[in-house]
């Protein structure tokens, strides 16, 4: 596999900062390019790479109509799909993944191709804040979001009764998701906390740029960060009349971006459930503070 064909995964539980990370990468590459004149266009420029669960992509790789297979039949095949130099469309090198690294149906294999993959950036965010963000994104009550974070069978399923443009993405419990990516040893991994992306932007994104082999000049990183701040992204979302990845009922994709909303919005009971259910992973990543059981 040549350097030209190398690719990366940007993996995360949904609503953990994956899109911000992709926008940052796009902006950093734009600024470092020959013609950085025009402003970033969210809907046109963010196509850094196909989502690994895309049905069209899988159909192409497998040579069949994937609708003719069940999700449990697809999971063991998905990791083998695309293990070649022709993995993704030309120029697309950073691929969003919300799946856990393995699924209960994948026969112990990763659900994404690892052949030729240079590594994975795993982005995680305080599960309390994830719950609030999920609630806005899917228009779900907070309690449902908390239950979903604790559900060992949680998955993104567009539908097994109507097809859908993506296949099932098994996530499992939030801590299982985190561990599946952070503790696997098949791909080099850079772990980034959303909270550090916000509070220690230069340091965190410089590590990201170095890990991905992208330009890491301090001024470029700072400029890219400024251009992709939440306020700028909100303005850019307004400029394009709605970000394409936003569900219809969701008012806006880029909403608040701040940390600590979960602690404000969740009930004590909901916070305790998360803290108890996810304690090991939350402690490991410094999310274990001051919820009284």
């Amino acid at each position, binding site marked *: 596999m040549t350097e030209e064909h190398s690719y990366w995964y940007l993996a995360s539980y949904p609503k953990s900062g994956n899109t911000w990370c992709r926008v940052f990468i796009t902006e950093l590459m734009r600024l470092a390019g020959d013609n950085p004149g025009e402003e970033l266009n969210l809907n046109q420029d963010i196509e850094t790479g196909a989502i690994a669960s895309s*049905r*069209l992509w899988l*159909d*192409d*790789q*497998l*040579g*069949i*109509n*994937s*609708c*003719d*297979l*069940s999700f449990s*039949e697809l999971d*063991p*095949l998905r990791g*083998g*799909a*695309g*293990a*070649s*130099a*022709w993995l993704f469309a030309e120029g697309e090198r950073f691929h969003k993944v919300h799946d856990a690294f393995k699924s209960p149906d994948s026969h112990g294999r990763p659900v994404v191709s690892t052949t030729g993959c240079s590594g994975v950036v795993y982005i995680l965010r305080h599960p309390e804040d994830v719950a609030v963000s999920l609630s806005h994104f899917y228009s779900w009550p907070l309690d449902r979001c908390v239950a979903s974070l604790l559900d060992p069978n949680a998955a993104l399923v567009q*539908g*097994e*009764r*109507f*097809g*859908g*443009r993506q296949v099932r993405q098994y996530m499992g419990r939030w801590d299982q998701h985190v561990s599946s990516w952070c503790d696997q040893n098949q791909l080099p991994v850079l772990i980034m906390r959303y909270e550090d992306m916000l509070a220690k932007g230069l340091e965190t994104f410089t590590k990201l740029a170095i890990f991905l082999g992208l330009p890491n000049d301090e001024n470029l990183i700072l400029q890219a960060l400024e251009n992709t701040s939440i306020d700028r992204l909100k303005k850019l979302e307004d400029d394009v009349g*709605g970000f*394409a990845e936003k*569900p*219809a*009922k969701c008012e806006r994709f880029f909403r608040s971006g701040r940390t600590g909303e979960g602690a404000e919005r969740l009930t004590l009971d909901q916070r305790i459930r998360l803290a108890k259910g996810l304690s090991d992973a939350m402690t490991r990543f410094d999310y274990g503070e001051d919820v009284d059981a």
Partner: protein
Amino acid sequence: MIKPHRYCALGAEISSDLVLPELQASDSACDALVQIQQGDHGQWPSLEPSPHSTPTLRLAPQDWRLELEGIGWFRATGGERLEWQRWDDSVSDRDIRTFAVTSGLGALAIQRGALVLHGTALERDGEAILLLGHPVAGKSTLAWCLLQDGWRLLSSELVAVSPDGLVLPGMHQLKLWHDAAVALELNWSQLPPVRKGLKRYALLAQDLDCMSQPTPLRLIYALNRAKADSGQEDDAEAEDESEKISLKASDDFSQTTALMRLRNQAFHARMYRGMDAEAQLFMQAAALARTVPMHALIVPDEIKAMAESLKKVDLMQPESMQQRTEATAEDASND
């Protein structure tokens, strides 16, 4: 020895050791051009695979191989022979034929030099329309609605078009998802699933009006599904509520746009490339784009709305539908 079953599909007489209810039975006395029979993948000669191959799909000129873990091995060669082998005894004939009559026969047709597209074709009054679109674009649902309105099915999922512009009868089967079957008020509990465990049902030829003769292609529609609760497909007309409940057709695509769309909708472009047939695809798609008009067809996402809106238009007359702007038509060509 059991006498093989005979069928005619995608322009070829077929002899098969599998019962294939998706295909039109044939009583032709002439020799079959295509043989479908059980094989032993361990005996298949080694292959110098094209770089377009994947772990599932091994490709070389005139040689196509599919290995589907848990289901079986398939090999199409020389446009004449399709071999299959079960993964193990738990694999049913239905499992095998699901992939044999779609990807397998499609690969054979490409090897024989046909233009094979992802689409569904229907006939009325001796003329055919072709609905182009990837899986889950809504082709089968739309086709089922049209069949209730006097159209006949020529082929679903994949469509072969001859060099003289005839749509060749192919897959006489529609696959409908559970939600579509419910919305169309079908008695889904009586329908066989496409494969065991899938919430997707097969409507076979015996339950459908099918066309058995090659039919001149009059119009091509590139399907675009409007989202019921979002303005994303709607662009400038996002405010127009009728957008969500009515079919719309664009003006003719330019030939260049039509050609790109046909290439994008080739039945597995990777197979064409891997079997060294991309030049063939380009020439045939260009010829078709020159001779048959193509329009975007914006289809309501909501199935009942789709069925209702069809009653108000004539798909043989694109002008009978509300027109889309040229800009949107070009967008619709963008996969």
